[in-house]
């Protein structure tokens, strides 16, 4: 009897493991994803690079100007989950992504899967990049290949044991990875749609400005979209950027666009903390793109306390 029970338990365990393994398998590019990739225009990719803010995490901390294009990684993100160390994404063929194909790059950006078929941790904001167009991904890849290679081996993240089991990220993706736009009810206005794409896709604003579900370990809480919350790194809070009294309610769209361009609030306080690097990326966008972001931020639902 006991032997039978043990055998049944073992069988169940194996079955559960098999289901887990099947559910959490890292994805490959889908047919439709691959079909949307294009030739890749490096010059057009520079705008995507600034919109995506690659240099804010993959260049040296507080890098300014062209130093932001040296993408050797090594930037330590000290979060409650552990320390994530950003990898080298410069076009160095030994230590960076110089040897990657466009398919491999696209699979990383959209599906969060490495060329070796492993899940990336969602500290790499593919949960936003999943909304990027194939054209932008292709242009960005072409642009990254034109930058200066940096020879610097990537380091492992410093995480507690349960989080080292990266296969579990497959479950996280099942629950939280979704290519659909967040704000579906903003109409068909072209400026708003462009703003939505920039904020929800490459700009990945929600990754910090939206609180997370599941005690901070889940996905972005879409019911409190861009409502602010605890800072993912270190002390302090990330501000609410919805049109609420506690957020940007008193700012005009022009104020928001001007802040993104100059780094100064309507009261002439300056941008601070990790937003400095982001703002300096936004300053490189076209005036129209900054205006589109501002229009979107004024159009989304206000989030209160």
């Amino acid at each position: 009897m006991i032997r039978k029970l043990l055998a049944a338990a073992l069988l169940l365990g194996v079955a559960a493991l098999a289901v887990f393994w099947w559910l959490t398998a890292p994805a490959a590019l889908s047919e439709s994803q691959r079909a949307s990739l294009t030739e890749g225009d490096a010059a057009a990719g520079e705008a995507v690079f600034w919109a995506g803010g690659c240099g804010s995490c993959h260049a040296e901390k507080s890098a300014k100007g062209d130093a932001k294009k040296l993408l050797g990684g090594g930037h330590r993100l000290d979060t409650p989950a552990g320390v994530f160390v950003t990898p080298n994404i410069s076009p160095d063929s030994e230590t960076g992504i110089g040897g990657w194909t466009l398919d491999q790059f696209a699979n990383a950006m959209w599906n969060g899967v490495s060329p070796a078929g492993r899940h990336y941790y969602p500290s790499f904001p593919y949960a936003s990049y999943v909304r990027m167009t194939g054209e932008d991904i292709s242009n960005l890849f072409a642009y990254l290949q034109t930058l200066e290679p940096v020879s610097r081996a990537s380091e492992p993240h410093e995480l507690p044991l349960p989080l080292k089991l990266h296969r579990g990220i497959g479950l996280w993706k099942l629950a939280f990875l979704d290519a659909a736009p967040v704000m579906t009810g903003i109409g068909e206005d072209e400026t708003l749609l462009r703003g939505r794409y920039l904020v929800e896709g490459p700009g990945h604003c929600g990754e910090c400005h939206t609180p997370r579900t599941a005690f901070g370990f889940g996905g972005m809480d879409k019911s409190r979209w861009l409502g602010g919350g605890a800072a993912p790194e270190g002390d302090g809070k990330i501000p609410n950027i919805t049109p609420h009294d506690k957020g940007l309610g008193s700012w005009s769209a022009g104020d928001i666009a001007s802040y993104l361009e100059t780094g100064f609030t309507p009261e002439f306080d300056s941008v601070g903390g990790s937003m400095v690097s982001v703002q300096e990326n936004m300053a490189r966008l076209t005036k129209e793109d900054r205006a589109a972001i501002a229009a979107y931020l004024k159009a989304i639902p206000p989030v209160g306390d």
Partner: protein
Amino acid sequence: MGRNCPAIEQTRLAAPAVPREYDMKKLVIASILTATLTAGAALAASHGGDDPIATRKNGMQGVGLAMGALAGMAKGEVPFNDKQALAALKTMNYVFTTFGAHFPEGSDMGANTTAAPKIWEDMEGFMAAIDKAKMDTAAAIEAAPASAEALGPILGSVGGNCKSCHEAFRVSN
């Protein structure tokens, strides 16, 4: 001379229509600067007082107001005025001259301070950042900007100092 030259007389009579608007703008600048200097005075009054958090907040507010006055002129929202530009720069410079004295040990604990712990971990770096802001505003005072265009690069360097110091040494609350 006026009696013999009606054209000039007329110009003089017609003139007030334009200056009225100009006076309004002047008033706006003047009130901004008054606020700025009040903030500076508040800083001076509380220098060495027992509330360093309030003191440094007043100082930063004064810098912000001065920055607003300069940016308004640079953007052409208010007319350029060399004396007022200089006064704004001097206000900033004055705040930076004493600013470093208001961060004693333990003053990171206030309920509403946004001073980052990094200030006390890297006091040397923090003081160097303040010193740079002081030197750059001193250089701008020395250069005595004579046009709105001349304010552009000054705002670039001064504004860059605001951002880099707030990047490293301030937390958002």
